[in-house]
């Protein structure tokens, strides 16, 4: 990789300047002539038959029912070709005859302003016949459980096993077995900007342009064309600035599809901006797993059998295009994957519930896979008298074992686990922290240290969505062109939600063309204007779209040297691009600037020898081909204090060492890691969508659903190990989810480490004060803790 100057530097994001001056353009900021505004009437019942919908006539207001929308929009089904056992009933944009979750849209109201539409929505009278709701996951599979969908014949959505070797036998011969049933609450992503969509339909030309908060505009274009019966090139999806996504904005939402249908029905542009309650009831939820896990270790502390039995929920429907069974599939596939073991038994059962549909949220099942195994390893290590770091070192895959396949079927490329752990231990000064912990324990202060090893599946190629028949592209593309003044424009299919992907692409293009980063402009987010691609999910931006941009820039460089050779009457091989110009390869002497070359290529073709066609742009696509995905890895550590009187957990400090391959921009990578860590801590300590026995969400406001605030969060130290991916030019891996995958597990391990003298154990997320107090009470009560701590007793 020659000319890699800008790669590896902490270039600033040009977009940050726009946003910091309040000049971002988010979907709700957009104005259109004749714009109408939609609000949705949402079911107040978790499960109900819709008997009648009536609305008083109001001037300027149009009420549209689910049945009317169904007249112009086909339903969809969240099944997947490669998972033949997966069932999911047809889902309509708005409920038809029956609502299957509290918050499912039932009717749309269109008026001249959002306030008028919301007023009119309150006047819509819906006659419901409430039905019994399937609510608890465990109960949903029991005999006589109320069905989430009466016609489905049961609440089981999907069931599978991922197994290799003989886990029963390995566990039976293990020297010790650690086992526990863990509960991970239902949570949601809470991007600060609620979903918003504007659909503009031109009835004359029958063309639909949709502006919206979508992480994959191509998926949205394909969905809209198929569901609304429009030719694909008559649908254009434009993504303005997006206020966070984290997976929430990756899905096909009935309300968003309905807005496009309404624009077609009315022949007017229609906007829908969700409010926060719409978001809590309408956005995808995630996690919601109960996992029974067991690990065995032999006398040396090496794994002898792993069992993971996960029960998860997809809510009312399995998500279209992005089957939500992935949450559990990732859990049973990724569990224990950092560690050498031969005998694994994973089982997954996924149920329907009358709750909001769940889907892909940052980390997708991987935080849970990490949490259960890391916690059991800690407990097993302590029971066996082995240092918790030592048991990990003993079990990491050997350096000469790669590539390998785990018994769960996961292809594992080269990892750097031991190097990451060594780096982390040095960064956090582990030994002195342990001394501090012991000293403070003697004073009755419960400090805990948790160290969790994680792997993160990033930049997933076509192996999953392809066989699923999901019509989701895992390819990305870029066009790079030289503008007449010698600056460079890159148009990419990457989608930017704040990660800085476009800046990373600018660095990559600048590196290959030998120009300054500020001389490269990168644009994206318009399905009519950029190469076709995938978008933003699975930590794929730089690894896939960045690789495509490198290859496009590489092709453009060849074109430019062809042209320069013709202009300079030199052999192409004797030239290279550097420092904003064309130079002699041998001497480094500058022969002409890119501006001069571009001037000839764009305006003075008359001066070129006959037959020379200046080709000042190049397009390339890239889809991962060397491996099914890029496996990133790392280790995180958490230091917490637990207050045994109140049950409060206070994270004091957090450390992460991660390996996302070659780092294009350390500043952006580190902030991805930090942001991901805090979301992970949120899931471990605060976040839960609480429902009552009737399926009513009890905390659908930001005042009641807790997310991390600045005051509760620790400073976070980040370190790196770089193991470039094999088979790509850049060698990058994803970094967007690593923080989230490892943070919650590290915090849980730290809490349990703090509680060790009390013998209390927490096994439920979020680890609320109530959770801690309940665990303490079960272990003998908070009153005894101080005594235990002071005598130093209780260490297993």
């Amino acid at each position: 990789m020659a000319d890699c100057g800008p790669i590896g530097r902490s270039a600033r994001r040009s977009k940050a300047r726009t946003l910091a001056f309040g000049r971002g353009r988010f979907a709700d900021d957009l104005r259109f002539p004749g714009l109408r505004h939609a609000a949705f009437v949402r079911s107040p019942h978790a499960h109900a038959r819709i008997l009648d919908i009536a609305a008083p006539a109001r001037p300027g207001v149009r009420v549209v029912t689910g049945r009317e929308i169904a007249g112009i929009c086909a339903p969809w089904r969240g099944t997947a070709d490669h998972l033949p056992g997966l069932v999911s009933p047809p889902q309509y944009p708005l409920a038809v005859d029956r609502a299957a979750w509290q918050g499912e849209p039932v009717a749309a109201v269109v008026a001249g302003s959002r306030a008028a539409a919301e007023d009119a929505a309150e006047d819509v009278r819906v006659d419901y016949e409430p039905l019994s709701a399937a609510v608890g996951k465990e109960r949903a599979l029991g005999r006589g459980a109320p069905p989430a969908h009466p016609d489905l014949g049961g609440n089981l959505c999907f069931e599978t096993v991922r197994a290799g070797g003989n886990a029963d036998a390995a566990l039976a011969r293990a020297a010790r077995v650690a086992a526990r049933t863990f509960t991970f609450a239902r949570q949601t992503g809470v991007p600060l900007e609620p979903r918003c969509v504007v659909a503009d339909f031109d009835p004359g030309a029958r063309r639909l342009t949709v502006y919206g908060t979508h992480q994959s505009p191509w998926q949205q274009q394909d969905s809209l064309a198929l569901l609304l019966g429009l030719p694909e090139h008559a649908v254009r999806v434009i993504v303005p600035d997006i206020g966070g996504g984290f997976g929430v904005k990756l899905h096909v939402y009935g309300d968003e599809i309905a807005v496009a249908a309404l624009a077609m029905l009315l022949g007017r542009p229609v906007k829908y901006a969700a409010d926060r309650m719409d978001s809590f009831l309408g956005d995808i939820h995630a996690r919601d797993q109960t996992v029974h896990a067991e690990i065995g270790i032999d006398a040396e502390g090496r794994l002898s059998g792993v069992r993971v039995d996960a029960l998860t929920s997809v809510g009312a429907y399995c998500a279209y295009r992005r089957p939500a069974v992935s949450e559990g599939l990732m859990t049973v596939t990724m569990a224990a994957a950092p560690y050498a073991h031969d005998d694994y038994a994973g089982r997954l059962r996924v149920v329907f519930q009358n709750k909001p549909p769940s889907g892909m949220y940052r980390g997708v099942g991987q935080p849970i896979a990490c949490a259960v195994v890391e916690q059991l390893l800690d407990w097993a290590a302590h029971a066996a008298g082995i240092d918790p770091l030592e048991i990990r070192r003993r079990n990491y895959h050997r350096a000469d074992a790669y590539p390998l396949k785990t018994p769960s079927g996961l292809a594992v490329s080269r990892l750097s686990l031991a190097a990451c752990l060594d780096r982390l231990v040095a960064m956090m000064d582990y030994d002195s922290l342990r001394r501090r912990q012991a000293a403070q324990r003697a004073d009755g202060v419960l400090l805990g240290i948790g160290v969790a090893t994680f792997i993160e599946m990033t930049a997933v190629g076509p192996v999953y969505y392809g066989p699923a028949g999901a019509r989701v592209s895992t390819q990305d593309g870029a066009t790079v062109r030289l503008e007449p003044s010698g600056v460079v424009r890159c148009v990419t299919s990457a989608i930017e939600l704040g990660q800085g992907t476009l800046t990373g692409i600018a660095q990559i293009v600048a590196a290959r063309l030998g120009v300054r980063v500020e001389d490269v402009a990168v644009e994206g987010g318009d399905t009519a204007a950029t190469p076709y691609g995938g978008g933003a999910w699975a930590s794929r931006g730089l690894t896939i779209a960045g690789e495509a941009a490198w290859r496009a820039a590489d092709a453009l460089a060849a074109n430019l040297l062809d042209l320069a050779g013709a202009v300079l009457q030199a052999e192409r091989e004797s030239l290279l691009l550097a420092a904003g110009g064309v130079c002699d390869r041998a001497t480094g002497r500058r022969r002409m600037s890119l501006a001069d070359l571009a001037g000839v290529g764009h305006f003075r073709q008359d001066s070129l020898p006959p037959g020379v066609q200046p080709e000042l742009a190049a397009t390339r696509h890239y889809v991962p081909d060397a491996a099914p995905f890029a496996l990133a890895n790392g280790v995180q550590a958490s230091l917490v204090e637990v207050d045994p009187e109140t049950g409060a957990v206070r994270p004091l400090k957090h450390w992460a060492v991660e390996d996302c391959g070659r780092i294009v921009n350390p500043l952006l990578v580190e902030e991805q890691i930090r942001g991901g860590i805090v979301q992970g801590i949120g899931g471990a300590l605060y976040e839960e969508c609480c429902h009552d026995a009737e399926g009513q969400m009890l905390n659908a406001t930001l005042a009641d659903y807790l997310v991390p605030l600045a005051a509760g969060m620790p400073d976070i130290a980040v370190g790196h190990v770089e193991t470039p991916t094999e088979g790509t030019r850049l060698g990058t891996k994803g970094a967007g989810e690593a923080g989230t995958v490892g943070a919650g597990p590290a915090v849980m391990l730290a809490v349990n480490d703090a509680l060790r003298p009390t013998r209390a154990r927490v096994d439920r997320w979020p680890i609320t004060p109530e959770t801690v107090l309940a665990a303490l009470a079960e272990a003998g009560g908070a009153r005894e803790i101080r005594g235990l701590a002071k005598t130093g007793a209780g260490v297993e």
Partner: protein
Amino acid sequence: MDEFIDITTRINGETVTRRVEARQHLVDFLRLELGLTGSHLGCEHGVCGACTLRVDGVIVRGCLMLAAQADGAEVWTIEGVSDSGEIADLQEAFIDRNALQCGYCTPGMLLTAQEMLAQGHRMSRAEIREFLSGNYCRCTGYHAIVDAVETVMERRFGG
């Protein structure tokens, strides 16, 4: 719902006279009537701080104040403090430290940070964190924001 109130208010240093719907929130008025879209709606129930504005020298939730209540008031938004250069150093520190990702919380976060800096003295990281805890950020994890504010404190009030 058809009640209207005439207001005269100073927005970013300019006098604005309008007839507003009695129930309209100040932030909706700014966004919808004046095109000042830098203030954002995150929750519309006074929790997240994305709609933070400065009214008569104090930061407020733009979604919890009615436009009618701004009659006679002095209102500053992110657009105004950007144009005046008042927070230029803070903005540069945020950009330099990558203390914003999606940028949706940033205008409100900057106005809150500027109010903290207006107190005129340095604070500990814990105090900075406490002060910022009325503004949600879902992307950064806050660490970089605290760094950026700390940097500006050092520059304004000396190391």
